[in-house]
């Protein structure tokens, strides 16, 4: 049997999906996969679809909703999944999307985060013990959850617990999941809902300066405010999105710098390259690999007819490696300019937290390099998340030597 062009669950594709993406771009850039959806891998197509009014988001939410009602008849209660996700802006359309997005944009007015990130980063660096560390568990993963906890105004003491819930919720973005995954998502969703219901109760009684309190206050002044369920879901979304994507971006930056020593040396020589370094990691090895859309009309892309109602999978991480747009697209070049990657999306769903993800990763990496003169990547089998939508290492063992 011929190997399908689209085989994202193969072990080799978890290690390196870029070969598969390249084959798709070269052989069938609008590929009708065995799964019935269209896989779009060229930059221009991905960008056009993200901007197009003929496509809607939310295909995963629709699928999960159908799954929940199906499993209700099998006596498997998965309803917490939808309750937790009802206000995930990334998956909403039209006026519903506008309403939630406007709400959070207005409530989240304080964008001064540098001192918070710097303090969290210093605290984690001071805590590192020994020369050999797990960069993911001891640094890249806790940092964003501390930051998001600080922004929201929720206790940092819950960070380990919230990380595990965030990891489970991220699985909702994955395209192909099992019932076991759905049960795990549902369990995490229930815990998350209880956690934020309690936090919202606390903040309603005793508001502070945090974002969650501001959301509650803002909501009181709205004519048609958010329901408690919507507020909880939005808080889950902010925490998970702010945590998982940043943890991934910080880790992917470190592993790519360590495996391209010339680029690391360049950055050490000129620390002002940190901004373009993060942009290049976003392009070359981004956190979010896939975005989904549904066609609202019959459309034709590159001569291929996409019937109304079709699911379209946009491989952002492939668009970012498109040779028609990026010279030497497979080369990791931290000084690359211009660098118009699509890792934060495009159009009206453009990432709400791009500034935070960027700033957090810049500070995280700069502070780490400043603290350690020498960082070595020991031989190891890299283990990646079993999630084709989000690229992230489970662990990253590194050896560090502090500045003399």
């Amino acid at each position, binding site marked *: 049997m011929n190997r399908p062009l689209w085989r994202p*669950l193969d072990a080799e594709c978890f290690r390196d999906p870029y070969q598969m993406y390249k084959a798709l771009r070269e052989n069938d850039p609008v590929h009708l*996969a*065995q*799964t019935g959806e269209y896989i779009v891998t060229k930059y221009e197509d991905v960008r056009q679809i993200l901007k197009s009014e003929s496509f809607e988001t939310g295909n995963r939410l629709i*699928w999960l909703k159908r799954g929940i009602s199906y499993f209700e008849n*099998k006596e498997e209660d998965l309803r917490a999944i939808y309750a937790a996700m009802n206000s995930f802006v990334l998956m909403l359309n039209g006026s519903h999307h506008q309403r939630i997005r406007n709400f959070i944009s207005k409530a989240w007015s304080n964008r001064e985060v540098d001192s918070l990130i710097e303090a969290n980063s210093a605290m984690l660096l001071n805590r590192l013990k020994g020369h050999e560390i797990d960069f993911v568990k001891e640094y890249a993963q806790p940092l964003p959850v501390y930051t998001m906890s600080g922004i929201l105004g929720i206790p940092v003491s819950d960070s380990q617990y919230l990380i595990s819930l965030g990891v489970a919720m991220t699985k909702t973005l994955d395209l*192909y999941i*099992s019932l076991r995954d759905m049960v795990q998502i549902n369990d995490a969703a229930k815990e998350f809902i209880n956690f934020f219901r309690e936090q919202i109760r606390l903040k309603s009684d005793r508001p502070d300066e945090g974002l969650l309190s501001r959301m509650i206050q803002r909501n009181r002044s709205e004519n048609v405010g958010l329901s408690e369920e919507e507020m909880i879901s939005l808080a889950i979304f902010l925490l998970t999105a702010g945590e998982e994507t940043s943890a991934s971006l910080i880790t992917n930056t470190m592993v790519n710098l360590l495996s391209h020593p010339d680029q690391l040396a360049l950055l050490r020589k000129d620390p002002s390259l940190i901004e373009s370094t993060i942009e290049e990691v976003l392009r070359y090895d981004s956190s979010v690999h896939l975005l989904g859309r549904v066609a609202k009309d019959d459309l034709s892309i590159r001569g291929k007819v996409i019937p109304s109602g079709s699911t379209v999978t946009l491989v952002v991480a492939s668009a970012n490696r498109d040779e028609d747009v990026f010279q030497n697209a497979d080369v990791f070049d931290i000084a690359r300019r211009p660098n118009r990657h699509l890792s934060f999306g495009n159009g009206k769903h453009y990432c709400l937290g791009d500034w935070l993800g960027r700033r957090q990763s810049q500070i995280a990496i700069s502070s780490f390099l400043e603290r350690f003169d020498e960082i070595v990547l020991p031989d190891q089998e890299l283990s990646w998340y079993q999630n084709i939508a989000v690229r992230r290492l489970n662990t990253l063992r590194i050896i560090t030597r502090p500045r003399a």
Partner: protein
Amino acid sequence: MRTHQEILGILKDEISRETRIPVSEIEDDAGFHSLGLDSISAVYILDRLEKKLGVTMNPLFFWDYPTVTLLAGHLTSLCNHE
């Protein structure tokens, strides 16, 4: 060891249970789609098969081996390797 026939039987039982099509009417080379299964009932059937056969299912099996006999064949080789 499980034979191809044995696994074919288990798979047909599961499909029949889900679709209410009698086992005798499920052709070996029938496609899952034509039997009325979709990406959601696939999740359920793969979960049942995983528990029955004790092998880890990949959610893409349903599409990569899209007929009764193709999936049974793949599961047979998996069962006899693990």
